[in-house]
């Protein structure tokens, strides 16, 4: 066999266009005759719209369309991946700062912008809720019209859903030591460097939509159903997103732009500003109460978790993040009794949606912080406490779900070894360690087509979005190995629903596993045809022919697939076509609708320096180790892990959205919403991975793009505690917050002790 490509780190497929500026992101696509759109919104969180006068805006030279809810079909169409609750444009009432209630389309951006200032809106600001306490207040205004949830007993509250999971009897469990605390996770935003962009163009009998979307096929369904078109008449182009991180999974303003394009009879494009992007997507904030019971030897006997997530004004996929993040919130541990209650709570804020980690980082922040507190309370080393309670490979740690699918202890031990856990940290520094577990996809469907052309070159059709994770490269590597083609003879076609077969979605670190397997199957399909071809050419019985990883073997003789192909296709040439399908069906009885396809597992260990006078936390060393099953492309694995780690440092140390009393985002934009720069890196970053080929993906791979973000915050907070003795249960660990905690601790030495340690 030729040198394998899988497991190596060839240059990124599509990399060249990324370094030459040729990569066309959605905002780079120019259509003739296009109109430029701008959104109109109000400078408050919630308002009753009394009148909208568009006449002055329409009078601006170059303005072709001023769209309001009145111009849409009535009642205003709504959409959403979980609940059909989001209107195409706000009708009657706006529900969050930045929600559009009108949109302009004009010949130039300038004209559109000018017109936005001339839409006259008469409105009445209404009381609104922006915090968990505020939203749960019995007197709180309702975010969602109860009519949207007929028959739902929660419809008259701001609780969208309440989830209950668990096993065993927590109340009957008897523990020697109980440790409890409440841990808060702030609102943070994805901040992909590419702001969201959308284009829609009517064609003779349908519509084409361009979007930097992670799930083109899902978007196709949404548009088709809103416009009452057959799927085949809705063509979605999904140019590679310039970063997605979950924020680009589901439809946002594509439906609006589609309605505008149809009304104008011309293409319409809307590229959001970064500020508008902040107002469009974020992660759910949370307050999570954890109570853990231990035997005095450190064995976990129960866990009791109550989680409140503050989601936004529309559900988007937020409730699913709450469900999925909470379902595994006990973590990778063996615990006989677990009770989990989790609520998604609506508020008059930006709709929260998927964001790398999908509801888990909030839970892991709480539970792993609680584990660290427990270790101190029990007088057991935090590493030893983890190792003692970690589920063994094959252990059913969540009854009824996929058993532990990795040797997680190895990952933890590797991280401990890299940071030098046993040895004391440098003077003045503190160490902390945490683990993170996340359930992979619970259902899935990825179709693919692979064509082996007459000269042995290959075209792969895959509906995955390559938003930086490098899916295109992985797919090309798989096809190259299986069909014996050099990597640069493989083309991967993505991002066009008229050409590429169905893929459910690009999320949950699924693509290497789901689409990867699908492509592997498509290649196997071709290999079967090659086998028949070789048997015919030889001639021998098919049973005597083995086709594997690019080669055809008959007896002791090895021939490249290409040679058989060329001879077999003969004068007419042509090609061989392989079809792949990877599916994981829903399991209606399962609390999440399906078991985990795999688990992502990571251990992060850090060493920090804390400036006690200023509160500055510097991560001196950051070790991140993920269980990846098989690193199909080690450089890309490293890129994903380190990238996720740094993103985790963002919400750990500096990121949070701040609202004013009226529910407006105060730090709207890049000046005051801080994310890590090259000067904010750990002084030393070490990433490593464990490969046991025990995943369900090609060659034993598992999904891996979120793991290294999951437990950064609890690891850093544990290290801050180790360095200073101060326990902080709110993020981010900004200099001011750390300073305040140190300050309070100096004044009252009990501050920072667990809310309750109940030793019986």
């Amino acid at each position: 066999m030729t040198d394998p490509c899988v497991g190596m780190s060839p240059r990124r497929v599509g990399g060249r266009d990324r370094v030459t500026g040729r990569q066309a992101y959605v905002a780079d696509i120019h259509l003739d005759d296009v109109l430029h759109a701008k959104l109109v919104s109000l400078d408050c969180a919630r308002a009753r719209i009394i009148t909208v006068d568009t006449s002055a805006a329409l009078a601006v030279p170059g303005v072709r369309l001023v769209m309001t809810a009145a111009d849409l079909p009535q009642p205003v169409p709504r959409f959403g991946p979980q609940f059909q609750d989001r209107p195409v444009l706000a009708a009657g009432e706006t529900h969050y700062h930045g929600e559009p209630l009108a949109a302009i389309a004009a010949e130039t951006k300038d004209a559109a912008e000018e017109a936005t200032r001339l839409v006259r809106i008469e409105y009445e600001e209404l009381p609104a809720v922006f915090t968990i306490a505020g939203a749960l207040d019995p007197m709180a205004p309702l975010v969602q019209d109860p009519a949207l949830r007929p028959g739902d007993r929660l419809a008259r509250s701001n609780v969208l859903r309440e989830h209950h999971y668990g096993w065993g009897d927590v109340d009957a469990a008897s523990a020697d030591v109980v440790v409890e605390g409440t841990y808060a996770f702030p609102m943070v935003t994805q901040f992909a460097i590419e702001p969201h962009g959308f284009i829609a163009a009517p064609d003779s009998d349908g519509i084409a939509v361009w979007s930097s979307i992670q799930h083109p096929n899902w978007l196709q369904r949404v548009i088709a159903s809103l416009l009452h078109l057959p799927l085949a008449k809705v063509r979605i182009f999904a140019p590679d997103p310039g970063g997605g991180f979950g924020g680009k999974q589901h439809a946002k303003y594509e439906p609006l732009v589609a309605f505008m394009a149809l009304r104008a009879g011309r293409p319409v494009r809307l590229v959001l500003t970064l500020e508008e992007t902040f107002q469009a997507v974020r992660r759910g904030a949370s307050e999570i109460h954890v109570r853990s019971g231990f035997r005095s030897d450190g064995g976990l006997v129960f866990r009791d978790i109550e989680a409140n997530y503050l989601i936004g004004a529309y559900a988007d996929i937020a409730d699913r993040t709450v469900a999925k993040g909470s379902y595994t919130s006990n973590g990778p541990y063996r615990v006989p009794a677990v009770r989990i209650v989790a609520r998604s709570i609506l508020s008059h804020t930006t709709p929260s949606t998927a964001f790398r980690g999908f509801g888990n980082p909030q839970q892991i922040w709480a539970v792993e912080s609680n584990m660290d507190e427990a270790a101190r309370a029990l007088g057991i080393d935090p590493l030893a406490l983890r190792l003692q309670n970690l589920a063994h490979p094959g252990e059913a740690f969540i009854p009824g779900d996929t058993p532990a699918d990795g040797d997680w202890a190895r990952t933890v031990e590797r991280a401990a070894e890299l940071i030098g856990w046993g040895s004391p940290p440098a003077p003045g520094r503190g160490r902390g360690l945490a683990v993170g577990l996340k359930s992979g996809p619970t259902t899935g469907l990825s179709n693919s087509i692979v064509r082996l052309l007459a000269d042995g070159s290959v075209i792969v059709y895959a509906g995955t979005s390559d938003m930086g994770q490098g899916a295109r490269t992985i797919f090309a590597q798989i096809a190259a190995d299986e069909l014996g083609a050099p990597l640069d003879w493989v083309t991967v076609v993505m991002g066009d629903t008229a050409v590429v077969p169905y893929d459910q979605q690009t999320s949950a670190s699924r693509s290497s596993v789901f689409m990867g397997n699908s492509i592997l199957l498509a290649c196997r399909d071709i290999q079967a045809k090659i086998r028949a071809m070789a048997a015919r050419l030889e001639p021998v019985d098919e049973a005597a022919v083995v086709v594997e990883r690019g080669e055809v073997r008959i007896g002791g003789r090895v021939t490249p697939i290409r040679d058989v192909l060329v001879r077999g296709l003969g004068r007419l040439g042509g090609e061989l076509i392989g079809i792949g399908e990877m599916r994981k069906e829903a399991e209606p009885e399962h609390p999440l609708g399906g078991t985990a396809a795999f688990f992502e597992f990571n251990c992060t260990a850090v060493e920090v320096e804390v400036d006690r006078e200023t509160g500055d936390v510097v991560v001196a060393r950051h070790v991140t180790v993920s269980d990846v099953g098989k690193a199909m492309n080690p450089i890309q694995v490293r890129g994903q892990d380190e990238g996720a780690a740094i993103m985790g440092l963002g919400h750990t140390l500096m990121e949070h959205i701040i609202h004013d009393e009226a529910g407006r985002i105060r730090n709207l934009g890049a000046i005051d919403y801080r994310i890590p720069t090259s000067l904010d890196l750990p002084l030393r970053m070490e990433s490593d991975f464990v490969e046991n080929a025990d995943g369900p993906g090609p060659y034993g791979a598992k999904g891996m793009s979120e793991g290294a973000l999951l437990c950064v915050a609890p690891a850093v907070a544990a290290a801050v505690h180790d360095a200073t003795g101060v326990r902080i249960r709110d993020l981010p660990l900004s200099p001011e917050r750390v300073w305040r905690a140190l300050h309070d601790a100096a004044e009252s030495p009990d501050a920072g002790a667990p809310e309750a340690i109940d030793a019986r």
Partner: protein
Amino acid sequence: MTMRQRIELTVNGRIRSVEVAPHHTLLDVLRDDLGLTGTKECCLVGECGACTVLVDDLAVDSCLMLGVEADGASVTTVEGLATGDKLHPLQEAFLETGAAQCGFCIPGQLLAAAALLANDPHPTRAAVEEGLAGNLCRCAGYEQIIEAVVVAARAGASES
């Protein structure tokens, strides 16, 4: 609407004469008037560096400069880094170390790095961190980006 003004500037070695609106930034002019979409738009407040170009060999955020200010200037964008089919050593190094993930920040990173190496052909890691601090990468390939700059410096990127 105010009068457009004619400006003449050199873009990637070619003299271009364009009529621009005074309130349009150099970024607008490059992307909309000259069709050079390699330069990216993100924050528009000088924080992210996605719009970085070289103006008379200095790295600047093109979102914070008016197009009219570039009259008479020489501008280098990412499209001007390679020589024909031959990539600039920085571009090679970015590919080699896997520095480009989604790629959206990369044009800006490359130009900031080019400016850095022109001033400091063999920068320390600290100098690279400082030189690229105005270029956000949310894929956070910072480690690989820094590595790429160091690799390119070794390959003599500043001489090309």
